[in-house]
């Protein structure tokens, strides 16, 4: 059972519809204690970072404990921003802090007509590796969330704040500046865009997370069946 965390930030109808269409077994837990039994967690959300203050306290503690015990966690949009230490949008509200870094406001570029909020379809690219890195020139995406996606795939964004490109970033997007579009670190995953609104590319990303949630045994069996 996947726990879809509803903390009142935006409407979950579209996330629910996408999960249902992919055959996911999910539920919205009513208390943090229920997270001890879930196979994976999804934190969706849209809107102001201050909305995540509803998670501060027992929910944040329970989600943190489940992550430490190995339960996969998928943050979507505001839910991804929450994985970081905090956001300039609501500096007084702490993030979950499982990823290092801080969310900042996008600047845009009025002369180039790059408006904020960043709304619409934009491409995913392989983040630039530091000079001398062994991965320099690596052309394909790494990580489990982007399995079967190719650089250049377009996804639907709507946001004004974004996380920096760090070692945990597996896909970046550029809108006047380059920011983290997809992050992955161990059992923690996040996307800045809305996979539930990104047509086939988005559904594939959700499918990839569902594979992670089902655990390695299931994925391996499927791989054997495909051979």
């Amino acid at each position, binding site marked *: 059972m996947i726990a879809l965390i509803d903390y009142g930030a935006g409407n979950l109808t579209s996330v629910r519809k996408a999960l249902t269409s992919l055959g996911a077994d999910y539920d919205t837990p009513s208390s943090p204690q229920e997270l001890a039994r879930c196979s994976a967690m999804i934190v969706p959300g849209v809107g102001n970072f201050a909305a995540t203050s509803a998670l501060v306290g027992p929910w944040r503690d329970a989600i943190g404990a489940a992550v430490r015990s190995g339960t996969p966690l998928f943050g979507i949009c505001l839910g991804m921003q929450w994985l970081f230490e905090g956001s300039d949008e609501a500096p007084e509200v702490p993030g979950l802090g499982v990823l290092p870094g801080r969310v900042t406001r996008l600047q845009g570029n009025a002369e180039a007509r790059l408006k904020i909020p960043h*709304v619409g379809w934009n*491409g995913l690219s392989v983040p630039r590796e530091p000079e001398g890195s062994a991965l320099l020139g690596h052309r394909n995406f790494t990580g489990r969330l982007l399995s079967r996606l190719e650089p250049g795939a377009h996804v639907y964004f709507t946001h004004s704040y974004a996380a920096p490109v760090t070692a945990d970033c597996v896909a970046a997007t550029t809108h006047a500046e380059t920011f983290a579009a997809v992050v992955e670190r161990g059992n923690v995953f996040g996307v800045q865009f809305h996979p539930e609104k990104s047509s086939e590319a988005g559904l594939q990303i959700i499918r990839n997370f569902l594979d992670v949630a089902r655990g390695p045994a299931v994925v391996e069996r499927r791989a054997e069946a495909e051979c």
Partner: protein
Amino acid sequence: MLTKRIIACMDVRAGQVVKGVQFQQLRHAGDPAELAARYNVEGIDEVVILDITATLESRQALADTISAVARRIFLPLTVGGGIRSEDDAAAAVEAGADKVSLNTAALKNPALITTLARRYGSQAVIVAIDAKRRGDGFAVYVRSGTSDAARDAVEWAREAESRGAGEILLTSMDRDGTRSGFDCEMTAAVANAVNIPVIASGGAGGLEHFCDVFTRGHADAALAASIFHYADTSVSELKRYLRGRNIPVRI
């Protein structure tokens, strides 16, 4: 790079797309979910459902239509037409709409923009402006274009933004239905006055009209209905054309 969006609008009455739909491949030609699924395959970026009757009796039919479309396609879905209150917007969102489009109600009660932006976020609130040229300006009309609102489109778009609108859907009443091209001057005037995306509507007739409105009109997105419904122009053909003219689109 952020791409220019192509948006298909479906005018819906009692659960059926009106204006005629001639896709041979569709089993049920007027079925909104079938049409939306077809657009999705062709590469449409967003879909708008416009309830053209907006009577009390049509409300349940509209909710059913939204729900059926939202089950079939995983694209941003906007609902407009007769959204007069927070309850109307909530019903649309609960049925599966990602954004609601306010027109007459926003002018009558501008506080509704802010109320909805606080509840669902600005990204969920589109203010639709129907306008026609008058002198040097652009006069806003309401009640499906029948009533002069005594407002200028540029000034009203600025106010809508300041009250929390996330996008402006700007329809040229002079061009609507003429297939003579978008009103690029009006679109540019509004797009240059606000910092939120502007969706141009009214007048789409050929591929070059989309190119014009994205370049001269500074539009962030373009909306059309009949040219896609009648399959004169497929979305995929339009996008290939635009890419050939160096306009970034999702293919």
